[in-house]
């Protein structure tokens, strides 16, 4: 009997020791689902990933939820897009989390915009210009080229936090980058030679336009975040007719009302487009999201 108890205790101790020596997954919290997709693919089973935004909402307008604070409080790594994309919720939640590991400037805080070249950085700042982002346009996730850099940043930071699994992170990142490179070629081919000029609801697309050669010619919002008045809408319609603009791109979370009205008045094709992963049903991961965007711009073959 004694022997059996001793044996049971010993096996219990061995199993406890074994479980304690297994590295716990790196707890990663990200702001938008695009980053969650990358973190999951790079980290595999060595990470657990929590995304604050669901993807269907305006990324500037995410409802602060209590689970976000508790997840941040326990996180090893907090990844943001930066450029003030998340200014409405991330700084307050980060402060409330009191987690010193992931505060700005600490190794557990990764601002992915650090590594990308930024467009539309304002030369002067004035609130009369609407919801201006002081560091530049934050929607660089619409450019898979810039997101290659983000993949590298995430892999490098995960490797710092969990050096034992660095090789796996690097290998996964390389694989993901190679897949993205192949898709970039495909997406470029799909949009090549189409001479697409378009009006979008919000200025989301400068990075996408730069990568794929499409041309944004205006926005339904007269200034970022500012809803248009009737006179502006009339002027926009007149301008679209005069310049023969045949495409209106409505970011999926904006109302249909005005874009439909403008489309009816101009005869332009109206498409509703996700601006991040899970923005629409088909945008199940980053590649699928970009597929949806490119297909919407390209139109039916």
């Amino acid at each position, binding site marked *: 009997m004694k022997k059996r108890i001793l044996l049971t205790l010993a096996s219990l101790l061995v199993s406890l020791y074994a479980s304690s020596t297994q590295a716990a997954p790196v707890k990663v919290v990200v702001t938008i689902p695009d980053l969650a997709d990358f973190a999951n693919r790079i980290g595999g089973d060595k990470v657990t990933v929590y995304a604050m935004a*669901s993807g*269907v*909402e*305006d990324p500037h*307008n995410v*409802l*602060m*939820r*209590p*689970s976000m*604070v*508790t997840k941040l*409080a*326990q996180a090893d790594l907090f990844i943001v897009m930066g450029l003030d994309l998340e200014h*409405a*919720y991330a*700084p*307050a*939640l980060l*402060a*409330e*989390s*009191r987690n*010193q590991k992931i*505060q700005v400037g600490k190794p557990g805080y990764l601002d992915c915009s*650090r*590594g*990308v*070249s930024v467009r539309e950085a304002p030369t002067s700042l004035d*609130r009369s210009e*609407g*919801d201006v982002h002081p560091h530049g346009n934050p929607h660089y996730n619409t*450019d898979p*080229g*810039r997101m*290659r*850099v983000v*993949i*590298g*940043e995430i*892999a*490098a*930071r995960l*490797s710092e936090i969990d050096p034992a699994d660095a090789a796996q992170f*690097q290998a996964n*990142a*390389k694989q993901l*980058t190679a897949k993205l*490179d192949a898709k*970039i070629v495909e997406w470029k081919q799909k949009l090549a030679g189409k001479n697409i000029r378009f009006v979008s609801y919000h200025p989301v697309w400068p990075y996408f336009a730069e*990568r794929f050669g499409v041309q944004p010619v205006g926005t339904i919002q007269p200034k970022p*975040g*500012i*809803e248009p008045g009737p006179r502006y809408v009339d002027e926009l319609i007149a301008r679209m007719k005069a310049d023969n603009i045949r495409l209106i791109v409505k970011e*999926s*979370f904006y*109302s249909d009302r005005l874009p439909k009205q403008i489309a009816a008045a101009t005869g332009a094709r109206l498409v509703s487009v996700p601006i991040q992963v899970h923005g629409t049903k088909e945008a199940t991961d980053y590649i699928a999201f970009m597929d949806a965007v490119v297909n919407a711009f390209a139109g039916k073959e």
Partner: protein
Amino acid sequence: MEALTKTVGSLQQQLDSQKQLWDGFHAPATAALGGATEAPAEPNPNASAGSLDQIQRDVDELKSAQRQVKSGLFNPDISAAVDFITSYSRKANNVNFTLRDAEVMIQSNVDQYARAYIVFNAETELAPTEKLGIFDKTSLGVEEAAIQTTNLPWGLQLKAGQFFADFTRMDKIHSHDLPFVDRPRSLTEIIGGEDASRGFELNWLVPMDHYLRLTGGVVDNIGADLPITSTLFNPDGSVHSASAFNDGANRPFQSLMGYGRAATLFDLGSGKVLHLGADYAKGSQDTRRQIASADAKLEWQPDPAKYDLFETGGEVLWSKQSGQLADQTLWQSPSIESLFNQSTGNASAAGGYVYAQYRFGKLWQPGVRVDYTHSNAFQLLDSDNNGDADSLGRLTNNVWTYSSYLTLNLSEFNRLRLQLNYVNGSEDIVPGKGRNDIQAFFQWTVILGAHKHDFAP
């Protein structure tokens, strides 16, 4: 022309090479991946080794120049708010143009251990029934000035100074940030306006999966103004200038007010978040004051892809105050005891409010609110009608306030609001003019500068 074309061509080449280098410098983490730049990079055949070295030196110089920190970059964040109110009371036949808040907030990290903030405010808190003199000017004061730790272990945070205590849901919110124009009467009367306090506050984010925040504090008082329980009413129902209770000549430790708040939140799924909170405060010695409250708020985002947001919430509050009655209250009398045969007494109040509002898109947000306030306060009586108070009695009042309001958010920083109150009491709302009143408000609020959203359950 040819020379110019050549020069432009050469400059273009240098620019291209520099851009490649710049991208490389901006993406140091990608080196491990064999150079994952923004695009599958193609080497620039025009960039010779010599010119690259020169450009490398230029870029190094540029980078070191960028590293020179200007002293101004350490300046604290500054923001300001202007809250202008037009109010009208029908029974008082009174219109006020009030600059309720002209507030400047300065905040910054102090070092790796603490941050601090100062709020200067030129404030005029006025009920629509009270007249603002045409020569009355708003004067600037320090509303808050506090130091807060940033680096305590175990999820602890300590605050010291003059601040709005983390007590109740709505009373720690600055007036211009309220979801309605006026602070609910129950909060104003039971707590005494905003949660203004001086002292220490410690709060703890309990390290567990469920959100639970516990706060405890020691302060000299909670409330910016006299609460109804300290108020002494004149025989005609107007408010006497002095407090009903003796404040004491000194403040021993026992007289400090201790308070606590527990706040928790539940993710109910489908865009619903439930906030719950409970508070208790107690001060003793000369004036024993107790306040207890419980609150709830439900936020519901019916469709995360839209800006619509439903919000409902409310608080219930109770307060009791007892102690030595102020003997200097009665200007000509030696003491209340000799005049009224009473040296101690107590007053109580209870009440609460509920509200519901719905944000349609980004712009419009209508809402309704109901407030109930019961008070049992001290009143001087003049039973022989000779113009002098001759006894101490009670003024019991039950006031219902029904409000509807409409907010127009022109932008995140510019907001207009209309509100209509119907007030119905068991005693006169405006002394001598009846037990009900209709009050109207127009509010225009703007925010300037760095605006930060707090997560304050």
